[in-house]
C-alpha cells in the first residue's frame, strides 16, 4: 500500500519506524500500519487547511467582498434564493435587467452554486451560527477547493497508490491554475464545478474498476451536480464516450465497462434533463450526440460478444456478424443523417465550435472573441499556472503508459484532451489543472519511491549477506548488483534532495503567484502612492452606492455590458444590458449608441427609456481597463448588426488614437464626450499639459466637450466612474 515496506516485526538496526524521531509515538505503541495511517491522515488534514488558507489573501488585505463581475450575479441570485425560497427562485423572471426585455433567470442559469451556498447558509443557521450570506458566498470557493484536494487524494489512490494520492492532493491544493478561479471572493461556477468534475471522474473510474452498479449510480449523481453547476459539463459527456470507445477499440473492454457506462449514461442523462437550462439538449444537441452514439454502439458490441460466446462456432458467428453490422450501421447512419439534415439535431453552438476551430469566433461572433479569457494560451501562461508540473506531465504520462490499466488510460485521455483545450482558450487551463496535478503526482510518487527504495536496499543487502542462513539467490544477486554501483545510495540521496528542492520552489512560486496575481478583487484597485504607501481606489462601489441612494427606484442605467451585474447587485437599479450577453442585438444597440454622435445616440436612448449613462474612464489614474480601451469592441459589435457603424471611421491609417490626429467621428462620438467631459481643464501629471490622458499616454484631441442632451450627474473621486443624466426632451417653445 504505502512506501514503507518494513514489516512490523523488523528488528533492523536502521530504524524504519519514526520512534527515534517522535518519542511520543513510542508512548502510543502503534503498529507500523497505524503509524502510516496517522501520518497520512495528518498530512491530509494539513493539506485541507492549506488549500483553504492560501486562498484568503484578498480577504486579509482588503475585506470580505465579492470580486469581479460574474460573481455579483451569482451573489444576487443566492440572496434572492435565501430570501424568497426555492419555488420563487426556480420560477424567477427578472425585469431589472435587459430592459425592456427582461430575463427568465430561473430557466437560464446553472443553479448548482447558488443551491450549494444556500444549503451551507441554512446549515450554519440551523447550528445557530448567524453568518451573513455574503460571508458564505465569499468562502464557498476555498471550502470546495479543500474538498477537491481530498477527492484528488482518493482519485490518486484509485489510479496508482496512496502515495500518489497524497502528492496529488498537495499539488492541487496550491496549483495556481485552480487558485485563479477559486480565491475567496471569486464566487463563480468554476469554484464548485471543478470539485464536481473531479468527483464525477473519480466515481466513474471507481465504477469501471469495480463494475458495481452502486458506484455508477454515484457517478451519475456526481454528473448531475456538475450539470447543475457549470456549462463545462459538455467536457464530461464527451470524454466518457471517447474513453469507452478507446477501450472498445483497443480490446481492453470488459463487462465492468458496460455496467459503469450504461448506468451512468442513462441515469445521468435523465438527471441532467431536470435542469431547465439544459433541457432536452442531451437528445437534441450535436454536442451530446457522441454519448448517445457510443451508447448504441455498446449495445450492439456487447450483444455481438454475447452471441459469439453462445454460438461457439466462428463461421456461423461471422455470418451473424455480417447481417447485424450492416443493419446497425445503416440504421445508425440513416438516423444521424436525417437528424442533422432536418435540423432536429442542432449543430455545435458557437461557443464550443470555436474550441475545435479557434479562428471561428474572430470572424463570426465578435462577442465571444472579445472576452479576454477566450484568447489562445501563451507559453508564459502555462509556465505561470503550472510551474514544474509542466515538465512533470510528460514524465507522468510515461509512468502511466508503463502500467496501463483502465484507470491510467482514463487519466491519460483526460490529461491529453484537457491540455489541448487549455491550449485553445486561457480559461480552460482550469479544466486541465486536476489532470496535470494527478499525472505529475504519479511521476513524483513513482520517482521518489524508486529513489527511497534505492536508499534502503543497501542496508537490507548488507543485512542478508551477514546472516548466513537466509542467503537466498535473490539477495546475493542484489548484493552483487549493488556492489557494481558503489555510489548508488549517494546518487539517490542527491536526487532526493533535488526533488525536495524542486517541490519547495513550486510551493514558493504558487504562494507568490497567488499573492501577486490572483488575489485582486478587480472592483477595488490598489496602487503604490508617491511615498510607497498603498492607495486604494474604491471608485466602483462609490458610484454604485451613489446610484442606489440618489436615483429614483425605477431609473434605467445604460452602460457597457461588463458592468451590468455589478450595477444590479450593488446599485439595485435596472440595466439595459449585462454580462449574460444573451441578446446580441440589444448589446449592438447600446454599442451603436455609444459610437454615434450625441443627437443620434439621444434618439436611441429615448427609445430605450434610459435615465442615466455610466462610463468607466481611466485617464486620471492610468487605469487601463476602461471604456475607451474597450471602445473598438463596441464599434465592432454595433457594426456587426447595424452597418451604419463602420470601424474604419474611428481609425486613422488603421491606428486607434484619441489625440489631435484622431478621426473626427472618434472625437465627437458619445463615448469620447462622456469620458473626456471637463477633462481638458484637468492637470493629471506634473509637467504635462492639461488634458493628458494617463492611460493612453497622450494629450486628448478635443478638449472642449459640450454636452447638449446629457448632463453630468456624478464623477467619483478618482474620475474612474462617471455617471450622466439623460435630460428630458426640450419644451416645444
Amino acid at each position, binding site marked *: 500500500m504505502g512506501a514503507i515496506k518494513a514489516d512490523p516485526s523488523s528488528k533492523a538496526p536502521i530504524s524504519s519506524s519514526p520512534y527515534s524521531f517522535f518519542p511520543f509515538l513510542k508512548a502510543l505503541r502503534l503498529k507500523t500500519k497505524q503509524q502510516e495511517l496517522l501520518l497520512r491522515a495528518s498530512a491530509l488534514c494539513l493539506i485541507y487547511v492549506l488549500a483553504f488558507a492560501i486562498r484568503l489573501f484578498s480577504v486579509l488585505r482588503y475585506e470580505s467582498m465579492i470580486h469581479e463581475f460574474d460573481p455579483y450575479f451569482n451573489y444576487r441570485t443566492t440572496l434572492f434564493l435565501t430570501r424568497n425560497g426555492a419555488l420563487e427562485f426556480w420560477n424567477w423572471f427578472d425585469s431589472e435587467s435587459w430592459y425592456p426585455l427582461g430575463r427568465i433567470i430561473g430557466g437560464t442559469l446553472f443553479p448548482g452554486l447558488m443551491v450549494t451556498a444556500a444549503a451551507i447558509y441554512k446549515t450554519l443557521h440551523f447550528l445557530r451560527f448567524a453568518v451573513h450570506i455574503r460571508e458564505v458566498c465569499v468562502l464557498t470557493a476555498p471550502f470546495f477547493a479543500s474538498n477537491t484536494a481530498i477527492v484528488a487524494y482518493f482519485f490518486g489512490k484509485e489510479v496508482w497508490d496512496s502515495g500518489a494520492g497524497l502528492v496529488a492532493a498537495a499539488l492541487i491544493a496550491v496549483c495556481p491554475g485552480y487558485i485563479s478561479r477559486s480565491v475567496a471572493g471569486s464566487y463563480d461556477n468554476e469554484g464548485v464545478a471543478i470539485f464536481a468534475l473531479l468527483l464525477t471522474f473519480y466515481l466513474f473510474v471507481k465504477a469501471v474498476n469495480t463494475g458495481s*452498479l*452502486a458506484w455508477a449510480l454515484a457517478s451519475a449523481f456526481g454528473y448531475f451536480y456538475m450539470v447543475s453547476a457549470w456549462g463545462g459539463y459538455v467536457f464530461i459527456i464527451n470524454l466518457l464516450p471517447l474513453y469507452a470507445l478507446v477501450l472498445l477499440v483497443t480490446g481492453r473492454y470488459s*463487462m465492468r465497462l458496460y455496467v459503469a457506462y450504461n448506468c451512468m449514461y442513462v441515469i445521468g442523462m*435523465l438527471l441532467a434533463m431536470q435542469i431547465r437550462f439544459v433541457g432536452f439538449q442531451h437528445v437534441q444537441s450535436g454536442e451530446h450526440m457522441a454519448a448517445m452514439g457510443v451508447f448504441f454502439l455498446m449495445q450492439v458490441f456487447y450483444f455481438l460478444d454475447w452471441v459469439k460466446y453462445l454460438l461457439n462456432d466462428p463461421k456461423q458467428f461471422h455470418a451473424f456478424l455480417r447481417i447485424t453490422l450492416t443493419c446497425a450501421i445503416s440504421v445508425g447512419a440513416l438516423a444521424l443523417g436525417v437528424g442533422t439534415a432536418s435540423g432536429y439535431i442542432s449543430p455545435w453552438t458557437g461557443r464550443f465550435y470555436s474550441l475545435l476551430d479557434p479562428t471561428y469566433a474572430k470572424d463570426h461572433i465578435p462577442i465571444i472573441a472579445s472576452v479576454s479569457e477566450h484568447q489562445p494560451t501563451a507559453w508564459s501562461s502555462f509556465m505561470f499556472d503550472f510551474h514544474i508540473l509542466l515538465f512533470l506531465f510528460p514524465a507522468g504520462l510515461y509512468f502511466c503508459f508503463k502500467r496501463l490499466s483502465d484507470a491510467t488510460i482514463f487519466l491519460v485521455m483526460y490529461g491529453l484532451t484537457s491540455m489541448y483545450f487549455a491550449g485553445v482558450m486561457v480559461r480552460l487551463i482550469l479544466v486541465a489543472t486536476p489532470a496535470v496535478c494527478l499525472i505529475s503526482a504519479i511521476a513524483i510518487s513513482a520517482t521518489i519511491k524508486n529513489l527511497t527504495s534505492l536508499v534502503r536496499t543497501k542496508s537490507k543487502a548488507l543485512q542478508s549477506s551477514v546472516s548466513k542462513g537466509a542467503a537466498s539467490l535473490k539477495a546475493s544477486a542484489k548484493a552483487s548488483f549493488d556492489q557494481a554501483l558503489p555510489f548508488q545510495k549517494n546518487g539517490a540521496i542527491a536526487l532526493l534532495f533535488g526533488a525536495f528542492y524542486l517541490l519547495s520552489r513550486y510551493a514558493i512560486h504558487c504562494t507568490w503567484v497567488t499573492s501577486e496575481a490572483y488575489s485582486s478583487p478587480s472592483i477595488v484597485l490598489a496602487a503604490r502612492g508617491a511615498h510607497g504607501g498603498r492607495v486604494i481606489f474604491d471608485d466602483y462601489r462609490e458610484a454604485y452606492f451613489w446610484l442606489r441612494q440618489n436615483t429614483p427606484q425605477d431609473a434605467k442605467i445604460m452602460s457597457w455590458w461588463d458592468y451590468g451585474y455589478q450595477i444590479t447587485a450593488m446599485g439595485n437599479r435596472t440595466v439595459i444590458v449585462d454580462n449574460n450577453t444573451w441578446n446580441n442585438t440589444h448589446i449592438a444597440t447600446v454599442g451603436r449608441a455609444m459610437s454615434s454622435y450625441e443627437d443620434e445616440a439621444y434618439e436611441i436612448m429615448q427609445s430605450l427609456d434610459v435615465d442615466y449613462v455610466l462610463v468607466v474612464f481611466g485617464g486620471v489614474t492610468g487605469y487601463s481597463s476602461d471604456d475607451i480601451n474597450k471602445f473598438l469592441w463596441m464599434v465592432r459589435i454595433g457594426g456587426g448588426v447595424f452597418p451604419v457603424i463602420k470601424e474604419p471611421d474611428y481609425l486613422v491609417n488603421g491606428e486607434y488614437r484619441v489625440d489631435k490626429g484622431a478621426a473626427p467621428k472618434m472625437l465627437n462620438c458619445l463615448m469620447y464626450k462622456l469620458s473626456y467631459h471637463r477633462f481638458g481643464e484637468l492637470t493629471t501629471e506634473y509637467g504635462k499639459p492639461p488634458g493628458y490622458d494617463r492611460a493612453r499616454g497622450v494629450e486628448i484631441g478635443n478638449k472642449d466637450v459640450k454636452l447638449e442632451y446629457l448632463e453630468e450627474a456624478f464623477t467619483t473621486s478618482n474620475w474612474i466612474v462617471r455617471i450622466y443624466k439623460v435630460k428630458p426632451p426640450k419644451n416645444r417653445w
Partner: protein
Amino acid sequence: MAKTTASDAQALIRSLRSAYASTPTNLKIIDLYVVFAVLTAIIQVAYMGIVGSFPFNSFLSGVLSCVGTAVLAVCLRIQVNKDNKEFKDLPPERAFADFVLCNLVLHLVIMNFLG
C-alpha cells in the same frame, strides 16, 4: 444461391436456439424482462410517430424509463451470470440490491420528469 443462404440462416437460428436453451432459468427470466421493456419502448416510439411528440418531456421520460430499466436488467444479468469470471465474488443479493436501488432512482426521476 438463395437456397444456401436460406439454409445457412436456418442453421444459424437452430444453433442459436439450442445454445440459448442451455442458459439457466433465472437468466431467461431477466432476458424476458429486457425484451418486454424494449418492446414497450418501441410501442411508445411508434405511438409518438402517430400523434406527434408534444409534450416532449413525457415522451422522453416514458421511453427512457423503458430503456433505462432494460439496461439495468442487462447489468443485473451480467453480474448474476455465473459464467462471468469478473463478478465471481459478487454475491447475487448485492447485485439485486444495486439493481433495485438504481431502478428506484430512475423511476423517481422519471416521475419528476413526467410532468
